[in-house]
């Protein structure tokens, strides 16, 4: 399945992601990492710690709804993989981000932005392994 090259839209999206990251650090002193936010939301340590996570997640979920209302059409989500692959992939991602203590947002954006050696190592590692996996799935198994 081919997709359109969207450098400006992607850059603008990236600038928004970066801005929200800085704003969360400025206001609450927190890292905008999807893994950390979600894990703390699922296993809360206190009411005040849970409430900001819930608010942040609620804001995220509102985004596509608001965009659908404003533009008149839902954001594009194209799924070239099977339901089984979603289940297996989702489970593996959950295990990996817990042991690796972060994902694309936490390590790839926040950690890279503060030049954390752990995040740079993590980001390089998952980018390489994602590329290898996509190669194997698409060009070795031909899925």
């Amino acid at each position: 399945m081919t997709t359109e090259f969207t450098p400006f839209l992607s850059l603008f999206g990236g600038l928004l992601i970066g801005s929200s990251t800085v704003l969360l650090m400025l206001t609450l002193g927190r890292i905008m990492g999807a893994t950390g936010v979600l894990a703390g939301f699922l296993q809360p340590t206190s009411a005040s710690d849970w409430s900001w996570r819930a608010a942040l997640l609620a804001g995220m979920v509102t985004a596509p709804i608001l965009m659908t209302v404003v533009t008149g059409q839902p954001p594009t989500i194209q799924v070239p993989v099977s339901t089984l692959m979603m289940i297996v992939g989702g489970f593996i991602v959950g295990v990996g981000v817990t042991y690796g203590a972060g994902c694309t947002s936490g390590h790839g954006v926040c950690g890279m932005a503060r030049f954390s050696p752990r995040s740079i190592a993590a980001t390089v590692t998952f980018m390489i392994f994602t590329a290898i996996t996509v190669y194997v799935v698409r060009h070795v198994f031909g899925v």
Partner: protein
Amino acid sequence: MLRIISTYLIGLVFGIGIMMSGMANPAKVLNFFDVFGTWDASLIFVMGGAILVAAPGYWLVVARPAGKPLMGEAFHVPQNRKLDMKLIAGSATFGVGWGIAGFCPGGALPAIGTLNPAVLTFTAALVVGIFTAKFTQNLTARRANSAAA
């Protein structure tokens, strides 16, 4: 209340960024990594754009004279700087899962709002994976403790 509203709006900005960028579109994500197939280089602009803002932004925020966030007691920034096997193996595992599904947690969470069945499936599996890993981590920690005692 101001804390909740501002955090909600920050989540909204993050979510719009994710949805616009293409990070919540598995076809686009997988194509970014498929250099030898249907390559789509767009996503390099996402990480590039985000770091372009976050790197100087973080530096400015943490360098504030007050030394603490506007609505919090302290900056919660990871202090661990050690590279260990857990970090590398975990990240490699995450990469394998991302390459199979095409969703990462930051891409999937805002997309829940679309109620797309693939997103909901991925997120449910993601949560099961997180709890499974937390359980095995606790198990290993308990074994290590009892071995030490």
